[in-house]
């Protein structure tokens, strides 16, 4: 009788543990997703300042400036993480053009404000990359649990399905070609 109770108790405990593990891992995924969001927003907030500074020194580069402003608008308006990340990639490209142009304006390049913004923008870009990496890592752990035994059994029981990874854009995968 006591043995039966112990066995039932242990079985119940295992059910609880697996339930909690799924919940914890899902929370972690949600949390890392919002981390990407936070960093994207931070990045978008930095852009207007940058544009103002650049305009002060390089007024004629209208095209490049417009590209950045547009990309920022698209990022702010984007819904859903996939679209946001894609918009951010476009913004990153536009920013690279701006920073390349800045090389031709020594005054702008020496501007303390500009340098600070440049540093900050590249730091947030790093953080976005890390947040995406952590998001995919979290999904990997979750999916491993969903697909391996005995996790797979409990996943079915609790109705948990493996999740999609955040895909990296095609352009990022290609090796960069350097031309002289």
């Amino acid at each position, binding site marked *: 009788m006591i043995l039966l109770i112990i066995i039932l108790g242990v079985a119940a405990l295992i059910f609880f543990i697996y339930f909690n593990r799924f919940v914890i891992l899902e929370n*972690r995924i949600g*949390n*890392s997703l919002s*981390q990407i969001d936070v*960093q994207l927003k931070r990045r978008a907030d930095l852009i207007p300042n940058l544009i103002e500074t650049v305009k002060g020194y390089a007024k004629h580069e209208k095209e490049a400036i417009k590209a950045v402003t547009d990309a920022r608008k698209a990022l702010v308006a984007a819904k859903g993480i996939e679209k946001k990340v894609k918009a951010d990639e476009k913004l990153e490209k536009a920013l690279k053009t701006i920073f390349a142009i800045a090389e031709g304006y020594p005054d702008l390049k020496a501007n303390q404000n500009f340098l600070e913004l440049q*540093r900050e923008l590249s*730091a947030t870009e*790093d*953080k976005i990359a*890390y*947040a995406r*990496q*952590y998001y995919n*890592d*979290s999904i*990997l*752990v979750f999916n*491993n649990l969903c697909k391996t035994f005995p996790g797979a059994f409990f996943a079915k029981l609790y109705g948990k399905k493996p999740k999609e990874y955040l895909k990296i854009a095609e352009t990022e995968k290609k090796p960069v070609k350097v031309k002289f």
Partner: protein
Amino acid sequence: MKKGRISFHDQILRNKLKSFFLMLGIFVVIVLLGYVISNAFAPEYFFTIMIFAIIFSLAYILISYHNSDKIALASVGAKKASRSEHKQYYDVVEGLTIASGMPMPKLYIMPLQQINAFASGRNPENSVICVSEGALKKLDKNELEGVVAHELSHIGNYDIRYMTLVTVMVGMVAIISQVFLRSLWFRRGGGRGKEIFILLGIILAILAPIFVYLVQMTISRKREFVADASAVKFTRYPPGLIKALEKIKEENYPEKRVNKALAPLFFANPFSFRKLSSTHPPIEKRIKVLKRM
């Protein structure tokens, strides 16, 4: 690599268990010392001394458990890193805490010219990372990232709790046994029966440093490899850590001012790189392993 932090669960559990047994061991050692000392010197105060020993050891363990990071920081003369002055340092650590999903540690800088770093604290929520001035000066961003990621993995694996406890407690045992040995010279003539306890005391005092050495050996070199591996998992960029290690190998000058007991805490052994690196695997070997990743 595949299972992420979950696969480090064993390591974390082992570190927590070891920390617990270490604290228990220290308690037993101090109480035992109290027992022997009271019997050797003043049997009439046996109970007073025992009570004192128990209270003292508990207080000592609690204080060092909660303040081990501060003790370690103070002993190298570390200062808090200011956010406005060391932006890159903060940026790098913030990025890596995002990559690893860990809370932000407090950042410190120690006035050492060699490239080095250590992490301390009792858990990830109460942790510090301390980097030498030399490291901030000589390492570029990717290299610094590698070093910081290595320290972050020590924090995540609870290596810090165990290593810092060992450092702090072991120092204490050594001091107590020294005091006891020296006090023997000033002992007044004792009665019969005390001799056996004095002999026991001497044996304990001699054994204590050996015990200390054995505990230090349990800080296996393996955990350095584990920390290197998870550092790469965070940065996804082995060359950063490899280059940092190569720079350390090149500069290769031992630091005289660092307390020897602190060695296991550091990123690289602060004293010598080839001879006695009992606390760290040789740098060449760490580089070789990293290059295979």
